[in-house]
């Protein structure tokens, strides 16, 4: 398929069709801040930080650049007053929602927002409901052990019935992906504890270093069809 032309911040750029405005901008050295976007996950476009202003003068509107597709002749402004004002407000709202989230403080400060005029939630709160943990568990790991529960007044990431999630394999991908360090795991004496469950860690049969929870290796074995023992050797020892 042939490339198309669009204008980003006054610059005419070429882009492959099917790309999002965000990726097209990045390919041309223009960065747009994001929170819920991750290269390995299907973009959901709900944090609303990546908004850009599109359209002809007098008839513009804001759209989130992570899902809006490139169009021939589209005029995009990534730093317009309207877009910046919305980004600042989104960050100000998140400062109130997750006062302890360092990433938010950093992004907000970069845009000149140092405090929030809104009532703050629990001072220790860090979750910004970006849902990267939920989406990773569902799309990448494939077990969907956690999900978004409730609606606005109580919306939260939770295990089913807020009890131990039987589907969890202890892989810790959610911990790794979380941008604001909400989810934690601890490891002690060969046991990893995450989301309230304890997972026995499997040691490498050759060198003895811990590889991953046994449950996680069993999950991989089920997917590939290989015997689970084949996963009991760490990468370095292979």
């Amino acid at each position: 398929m042939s490339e198309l032309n669009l204008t980003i911040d006054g610059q005419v750029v070429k882009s492959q069709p099917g790309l999002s405005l965000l990726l097209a901008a990045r390919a041309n050295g223009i960065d747009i801040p994001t929170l819920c976007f991750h290269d390995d996950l299907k973009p959901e476009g709900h944090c609303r930080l990546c908004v850009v202003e599109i359209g002809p003068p007098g008839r513009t509107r804001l759209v989130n650049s992570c899902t809006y597709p490139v169009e021939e002749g589209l005029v995009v402004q990534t730093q317009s007053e309207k877009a910046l004002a919305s980004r600042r407000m989104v960050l100000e709202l998140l400062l109130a929602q997750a006062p302890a989230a360092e990433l938010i403080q950093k992004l907000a400060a970069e845009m000149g927002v140092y405090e929030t005029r809104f009532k703050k939630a629990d001072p220790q709160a860090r979750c910004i409901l970006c849902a990267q943990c939920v989406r990773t568990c569902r799309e990448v790991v494939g077990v969907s052990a956690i999900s978004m529960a409730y609606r606005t007044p109580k919306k939260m990431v939770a295990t089913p019935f807020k009890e131990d999630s039987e589907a969890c394999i202890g892989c810790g991908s959610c911990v790794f992906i979380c941008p604001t360090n909400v989810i934690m795991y601890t490891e002690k004496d060969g046991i990893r504890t995450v989301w309230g469950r304890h997972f026995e860690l499997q040691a490498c049969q050759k060198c003895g270093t811990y590889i991953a929870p046994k449950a996680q290796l069993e999950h991989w074995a089920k997917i590939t069809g290989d015997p689970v023992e084949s996963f009991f050797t760490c990468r370095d020892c292979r």
Partner: protein
Amino acid sequence: MINQEKLDTILTRYEASSANLIPVLQDIQDEFNYLPKDELKLVAGKLQVPLTQVYSVATFFKMFSLEPKGRHQIRVCLGTACHLRGGQRLVETVSRRLGVETGHATQDLQFSLETVGCLGSCAQAPLMMIDDKYFGRMAVDKVPKILKPYKNQDQD
């Protein structure tokens, strides 16, 4: 304790597909008066959806309750017309009379009290429903009389 028979009756009505998750949950809610945890785990297995999806759906939609609802469900309308005609005061009166918070059931599970966004009979505001019965043009002083037959009925 899973009521396997009742659950099977419901599951056989629908094809085992994720598209039928909400209708299945609706039938379970209607049958059991709430969504029991163990039944939901079985549903996840039968319809081949992750338990997390079942839990998300069960907590997202207002009609579903993870706690048992009362034998008689009182819904007080707080739609705009009803709000303007004293809907809030009506809820407070019922709540006080029965000793139950909105969104919960009485200790003995006789009544549960909910507010609804709109029952669609706006010209008869303020409105409330007890089970299938509508009570229009309500006033706080009508409440005791209306509740009485339901209270007595369960005592017999």
